[in-house]
């Protein structure tokens, strides 16, 4: 199986740090801002960002997770219904600045569903998007990220996987050829 490492552990750490500093530029001490990870893979990114941000700011940063299963536009177009994960937003998002977080931005459909799901919780002042990997030129919808870890040019047949020490044993970002991967 041929795969290409886009980011190694060191680069992942640097990228997270850079994203945190960019976030602080726009959000100050995060007193009015909340990070919301999209289930399932955005959660890992939020965990890292939160840890690094709290290290830099020396105070707690509010985070949540959002499950978008019921808001997807491909229900009944798939073989099987998707089983939802938990949503954990036990605070008001009214008038807050929200940063939606996901690992890979590809077609933009997940983000569209995410925005719809988010608005069911109230009316935030502003919503931004952060993604670890931006697979550019592959969008199905007019959606762009405000904070990007790394931009990559890929083919549709390829797959990008962001792996974490906590779940896969190693921090890295890989590019697979899907045919090889079965």
């Amino acid at each position, binding site marked *: 199986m041929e795969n290409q490492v886009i980011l190694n552990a060191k680069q992942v750490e640097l990228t997270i740090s850079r994203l945190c500093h960019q976030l602080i530029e726009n959000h100050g001490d995060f007193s009015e801002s909340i990070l919301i990870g999209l289930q399932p893979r955005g959660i890992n990114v939020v965990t890292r960002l939160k840890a690094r941000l709290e290290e830099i700011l020396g105070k707690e940063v509010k985070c949540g997770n959002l499950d978008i299963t019921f808001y997807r536009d491909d229900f009944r177009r798939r073989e099987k219904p998707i089983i*939802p994960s938990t949503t954990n937003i036990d605070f008001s998002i009214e008038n807050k600045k929200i940063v939606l977080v996901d690992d890979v931005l590809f077609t933009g459909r997940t983000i569209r569903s995410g925005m719809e799901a988010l608005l069911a*919780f109230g009316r935030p002042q502003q919503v931004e998007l952060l993604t670890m990997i931006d697979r550019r030129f592959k969008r199905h919808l007019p959606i762009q990220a405000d904070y990007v870890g790394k931009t990559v040019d890929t083919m549709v047949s390829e797959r990008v996987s962001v792996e974490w020490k906590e779940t896969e044993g190693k921090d890295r970002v890989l590019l697979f050829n899907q045919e090889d991967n079965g």
Partner: protein
Amino acid sequence: MDNLSVEHLIGIRDLTKADIELIFKTADQFKDVINRPIKKVPSLRDVTIANLFFENSTRTRLSFELAEKRLSADVVNFSASSSSVSKGETLVDTVNNILSMKVDMVVMRHPNPGAAKFLSDRIDAKVVNAGDGTHEHPTQALLDAFTIREKLGTVEGKKVVIVGDILHSRVALSNILCLQKLGAEVMVCGPTTLIPNHIDKLGVKVSHNLRHALEWCDVANMLRIQLERQDIKYFPSLREYSMLFGLNKEILDSLSKEIVVMHPGPINRGVEITSDVADSKQAVILQQVENGVAIRMAVIYLLAGKIERQ
């Protein structure tokens, strides 16, 4: 396991343990949804559901309708009293007429046992049984078990007694099957005339003494006396029934442990359960109603995932 093993929900008998657990897992998420400021998700916006009620119902019908609307489905309602059924149309004709208006799913309550199965064999839409005569009422059993799981953490190993009119109760049969599949022990309790012969073949214990049954159980599910289904007298008087099988505060407080009290509604206050018990903190009757919407959303969502697209 991420799909139901059935195409329709006719009865608990057809479901596997994994199916029931999948429904519960999905219902957990829907329970979260219905407690949000905006209690609605867009999943089923291209699905149309017909609610066919050939028999009276308030709670189940409202609960199904709410569940469908919170999934953004289009809903049409139909009740037998105001329809052509009274003009002599057969069940299949009535339903086929409704289906030609492009309905994807039918939720049906009918006074005849087996009506839901009959329908599912003949029409090209998903069927959800909302009660067929004295046969089954699967969503009620699912929401009862879901409530027990929520209250006690698990259903497995718990002891549940079902008290009252077991003979005429579809809730009793569905509950027995559902609880047993989830690993609970079940006892039925009531006057001998209202306990069906050979019910022990289902693997349930039988008792005719309420106090004895309550001392044994963790959960008591008090059923309503279904006077509308009783063509003869099964017991001398309601007053006598209530004295022997009614749950009141004195019995409840005299038990050696605190039990959970359930009732599928509608309550006949002062017959199977007294007002102070129905309103006590041991009663989870209103939680059952809330969970009913979440369970029905889960069932409809999972079945709708199986509708073939043209």
